[in-house]
């Protein structure tokens, strides 16, 4: 993938900003126009639709957005029609006419060759922490996100959430216009109103002005606030994130006297102990951490060794699934455990048996690896645990080596305090002017504060948000927020590294960025680009003429050497804590693995992404352990041949507040604990998200932000979960080969079958594409699935269809476990195996699926008649069928909201009703690389073709390449002694192979897993 040095970015955007914007008009005029039908306001769809020009474009282009058509379209026209795309709601009935038209440019933009995608570097933030991405753009349509190899938080990988942010951009439910009390107003009116009130605040120094922000790390926004502060010294900023890290900073305060940010160096750690921390999956830097961690776990000929992971946790987390030794306990017990561990490390190990045995063996292991171990505590554990852990790391000399401390990347003040104060002030009527940027506090603020009601007490509340959500409903004004892919900005990564965000497209729905908005408050009329640029002019980007460095930085996506320097820390020991462990059932809150804190609830991709360990979609559930379930009288037979999705509904009571939701059994989950995930049960999420799952925030109070005593009782009703996997045992079919790393090289039970074939073998002398997946490294995070969906225009089908087992994912992550109470998990990503003796091909009556000369199992959609015979005959069941016209389905809904068509990858056919589809090894990427190579009269280089799943995988568990190339990585992995293929005895000869799941148990604790 090449990153275009993007010098003319500025001009393009200037050009773009010249495009006709709606004139700001008064309500009266608006009414007139709505009558007269003059297209002046984005919102007036039918008016737009009636505009012949626009209609022409829409007519012309939309029906063919799904195909490689975009050849001859002008960027600006494109942007205009994109902006008006909702208008298509009225025009969806476009039909392909016998004669198609070509619409060439009027003035061709330089440096844009139709049909050749360009890649731009930018960054996207989650919880304020940036992840660098490369955005693939087709004629001005961003279509795919991939990690930016230059960026420390990514190194080229992404997680599922980042993959889905491209869909967030095109979400047809994003707010389209400026409203006051739900009615449209012109920006002019709004600005007049706000500025008037601001002026009134000048007198009081702006003590009535409050901002409520989610965590952010943007230097520019800091700068703008500083300027505001000059004008209104009394102005206050409050912060709120549902997924906050209070305890991390508080822990640091306790240990070092000041809030600091930890950065872990898993690449240096031989022993890792996690106390309720899901560091491989959640939190800042998790993608990078996963990579570093995996690099120490990659068992190969040259270095058949790996690190060891102990996990002590109060739920079943992705990190826990990777553990070599795992101990589950109720959240409140972790503190005591940490205390015990500290004393063990400090005063030497003692005691044996049960938990102590685990603890002492672990402690010994840690002591044996000073400076090469990491003990890490979860955000959900109280500050005390963090303080204890900090001390343990100090005792192990880990500070500075494996654990580094830097200045906080985001504002470290306590979120819980901050929002509590704001609510109080609101209730006391102290707040004249409240600005709520992003986030969704009305939905996820601590329920006992009743923040949503409090908002109404503000003199004037202004909401800047992507969607008109619960919070917007309580605010006076709602202003559409520009997506990060639509706006200029900057942000810092988990280690402080800064990136500059550049827009990939003009705001689709005429939203404005935080920067523009603040500038507006300051009366600063400049384009946001200029403001961001200024920030860095002041900060300095490095040697050389600024313009050059600037564009170089944009192209690279990272501001060189901007990472925060590690701080010297001196630790003040933490006093012994009396165990505050409560008895009885506890509830454990957790950001949802797919919809996070609710910001992705309206994302069909993520809704349909199976949740790790649950394999459930479109719902959140109350997770309990088998024993607890037994106690509650829950009957779910996890051993059944086909586990149905019928889940009992239970009522969860926390501090007198109640919420009801589906209960599901998760082996390995601690007893007497119920884990609930945030982000569901939303009332104003949008067409996709509204009404899915139950709202855990309804019982999440100020004191009980992460866990609390609770009670659970069955209501007697049942509900249907949409599961994607219905059987959890391997049935001794050797799907995963498990072995201890010590046994590396010893050929065990399974001896490679002798290669026999009834037919003369087919020769593959050219490129011989193959894939190897390392099951040791797969964490089951589903990033590959999301990436595949994004790359291959895969439809989402909605809950009902998933229940009918019709999900369309080309790659799925199978999850197996061996025991209910103390399970060992194994994750197996299963894409198409690209069998050389493909059983599917022989039975296709129309030769719609056959082999190409490189041994790929081709699937030709336009030839397929849909007998589904191939799927029946596929031993791996990786083929997917369009039972309905899924382009009408959630998130794909092209016919209703063509804006989602802009998201399409023009190099992949959008499959119609009644055709079979499957993984193609991203043949479109292979083909592109082949053509490039041919033009340069050279063979395709190793690593030149990267499949979407491979690129996304945080642990780089997937390797793809040309098996015939002796120097290719894939060839090396295929040569690994323990390489195996699924169901080898079928002699289908899969090209996709696997490496066994190696574990590294502590010899001292065989009995405790």
């Amino acid at each position, binding site marked *: 993938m090449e990153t275009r040095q993007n010098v003319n970015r500025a001009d393009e955007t200037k050009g773009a900003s010249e495009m006709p914007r709606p004139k700001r008009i008064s309500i009266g005029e608006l009414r007139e126009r709505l009558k007269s039908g003059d297209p002046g306001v984005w919102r007036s769809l039918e008016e737009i639709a009636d505009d012949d020009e626009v209609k022409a474009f829409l007519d012309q282009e939309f029906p063919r957005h799904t195909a490689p058509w975009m050849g001859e379209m002008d960027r600006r026209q494109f942007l205009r029609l994109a902006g008006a795309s909702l208008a298509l709601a009225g025009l969806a009935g476009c039909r392909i006419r016998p004669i198609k038209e070509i619409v060439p440019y009027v003035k061709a933009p330089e440096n844009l060759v139709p049909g050749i995608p360009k890649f731009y570097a930018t960054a996207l933030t989650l919880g304020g922490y940036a992840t660098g991405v490369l955005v693939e753009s087709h004629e001005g349509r961003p279509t795919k996100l991939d990690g930016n190899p230059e960026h420390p938080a990514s190194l080229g990988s992404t997680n599922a959430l980042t993959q889905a942010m491209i869909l967030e951009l095109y979400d047809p439910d994003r707010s389209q216009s400026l409203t006051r009390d739900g009615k449209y107003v012109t920006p002019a009116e709004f600005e007049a109103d706000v500025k008037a009130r601001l002026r009134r605040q000048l007198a009081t120094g702006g003590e009535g002005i409050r901002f409520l922000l989610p965590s952010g790390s943007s230097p520019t926004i800091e700068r703008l606030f500083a300027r505001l502060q000059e004008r209104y010294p009394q102005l206050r900023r409050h912060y709120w994130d549902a997924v906050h890290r209070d305890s991390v900073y508080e822990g640091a305060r306790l240990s070092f006297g000041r809030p600091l940010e930890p950065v872990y160096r898993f690449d240096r750690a031989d022993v890792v102990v996690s106390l309720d921390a899901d560091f491989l999956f959640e939190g800042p830097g998790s993608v990078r951490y996963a990579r570093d961690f995996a690099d120490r776990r990659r068992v190969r000929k040259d270095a058949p060794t790996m690190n060891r992971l102990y996990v002590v946790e109060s739920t079943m987390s992705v990190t826990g699934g990777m553990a070599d030794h795992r101990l589950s306990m109720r959240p409140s017990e972790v503190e005591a455990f940490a205390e015990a561990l500290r004393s063990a490390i400090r005063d030497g190990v003692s005691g044996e048996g049960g938990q102590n045995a685990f603890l002492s063996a672990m402690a010994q292991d840690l002591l044996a690896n000073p400076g090469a171990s990491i003990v890490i505590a979860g955000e959900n554990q109280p500050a005390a645990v963090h303080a204890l852990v900090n001390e343990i790391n100090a005792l192990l000399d880990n500070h500075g080596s494996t654990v580094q401390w830097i200045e906080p990347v985001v504002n470290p003040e306590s979120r819980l305090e901050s929002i509590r104060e704001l609510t109080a002030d609101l209730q006391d009527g102290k707040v004249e002017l409240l600005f709520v940027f992003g986030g969704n506090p009305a939905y996820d603020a601590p329920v006992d504060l009743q923040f949503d009601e409090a908002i109404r007490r503000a003199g004037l509340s202004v909401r800047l948000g992507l969607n008109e959500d619960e919070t917007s409903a309580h605010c006076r004004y709602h202003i559409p927020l520009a997506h990060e892919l639509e706006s200029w900005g900057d942000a810092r990564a988990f280690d402080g590294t800064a990136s500059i965000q550049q827009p990939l497209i003009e705001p689709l729905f005429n939203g404005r960025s935080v920067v523009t908005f603040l500038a507006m408050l300051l009366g600063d009329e400049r384009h946001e680009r200029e403001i961001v640029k200024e920030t860095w002019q002041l900060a300095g980007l490095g040697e050389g003429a600024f313009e050059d460095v600037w564009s170089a930085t944009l192209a690279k996506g990272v501001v060189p050497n901007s990472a925060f320097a590690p701080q010297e820390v001196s630790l003040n020991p933490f006093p012994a804590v009396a165990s505050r462990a409560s008895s009885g059932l506890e509830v454990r809150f957790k950001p949802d693995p797919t919809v996070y804190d609710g910001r992705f609830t309206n994302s069909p991709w993520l809704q349909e992404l199976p949740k790790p360990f649950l394999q459930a979609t479109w719902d959140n559930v109350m997770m309990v352990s088998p024993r607890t379930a037994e106690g509650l009288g829950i009957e779910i037979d996890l051993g059944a041949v086909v586990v149905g999705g019928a889940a009992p509904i239970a009522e969860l009571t926390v501090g007198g507040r109640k919420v009801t939701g589906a209960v599901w059994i998760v082996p390995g989950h601690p007893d007497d604990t119920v884990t609930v995930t945030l982000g569901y049960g939303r009332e104003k999420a949008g067409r996709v998200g509204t009404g899915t799952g139950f709202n855990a925030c309804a019982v999440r109070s100020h004191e009980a932000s992460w866990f609390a005593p609770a009670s659970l009782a069955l209501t007697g009703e049942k509900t249907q979960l949409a599961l994607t996997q219905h059987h959890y045992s391997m049935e001794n079919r050797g799907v995963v080969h498990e072995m201890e790393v010590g046994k590396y090289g010893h050929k065990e039970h399974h001896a490679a079958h002798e290669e026999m*074939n009834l*037919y*003369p*073998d*087919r020769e593959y002398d050219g490129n011989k594409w193959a894939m190897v997946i390392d099951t040791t490294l797969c964490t089951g995070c589903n990033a590959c699935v999301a990436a595949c969906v994004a790359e291959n225009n895969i439809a989402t089908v909605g809950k009902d269809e998933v229940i009918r087992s019709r999900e369309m994912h080309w790659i799925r992550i199978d999850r197996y476990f061996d025991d209910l109470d103390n399970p060992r998990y194994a994750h197996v990503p299963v894409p198409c195996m690209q*069998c*050389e*003796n*493909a*059983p*599917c*091909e*022989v039975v*296709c009556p129309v*030769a719609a699926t*056959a*082999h*190409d*000369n490189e041994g790929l199992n081709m699937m030709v959609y336009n030839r397929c008649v849909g007998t589904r015979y191939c799927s029946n005959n596929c031993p791996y069941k990786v083929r997917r069928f369009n039972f309905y016209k899924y382009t009408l389905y959630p998130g794909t809904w092209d016919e209703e909201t063509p804006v989602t068509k802009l998201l399409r990858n023009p190099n992949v056919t959008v499959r119609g009703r009644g055709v079979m589809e499957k993984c193609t090894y991203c043949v479109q990427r292979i083909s592109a690389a082949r053509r490039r190579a041919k033009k340069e009269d050279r063979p395709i280089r190793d690593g030149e073709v990267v499949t979407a799943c491979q690129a996304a995988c945080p642990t780089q568990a997937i390797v793809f390449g040309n098996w015939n190339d002796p120097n290719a990585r894939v060839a090396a992995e295929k040569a690994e002694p323990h390489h195996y293929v699924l169901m080898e005895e079928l002699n289908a*000869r899969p090209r996709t192979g696997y490496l066994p799941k190696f574990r590294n148990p502590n010899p001292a604790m065989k009995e405790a897993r």
Partner: protein
Amino acid sequence: MAHHPTVIEPKLRGFTAHYETPEALIEAARSAREAGYSRLDALTPYAVEGLVEVLGQRDDTVPKIVLTGGVLGALSGLALQTYVAVFDYPMNIGGRPNFSWPSFIPITFECGVLAAALSALVGMLMLNGLPRPHHPVFDAPEIERATDDRFVLFIESEDPQFNTSETREFLKETGAVSVQEVIS
């Protein structure tokens, strides 16, 4: 196909003689042959064994046609498959050889049977000169009983031996239940 006369003015076409049993008919036919009549036909409600031999009208071409049809059908079936899979558009289907003859057997067989069956039908009809909805004999009185319970012998007037009075007499002597003039 049997050529047939197209006539305008009605004239005598011959005589039909009705018998009660197939045996009687066979006897009559035999004596008619011995009397030297050649333009004979016998109409019966169901196949009467040995009749054609007596009338000297036995013809065994149908099986030959069917055999040829069948063989040709099978061969063309096999040829089509081979041409497609080996020469016109060879494809690597599941690693199988281009000429996977075992997979071609069923279709080859079906083609053979189909062709054979059709040639049986067409062959039989053409040799019998069918369809022929109009035939002089249908003008004979009571001829409809030939498809019911009567066994009919028909001597055409074209027959060199034919003589209006003598032939009628002759037929009467063969024990016919009734002898009718066929005028059409």
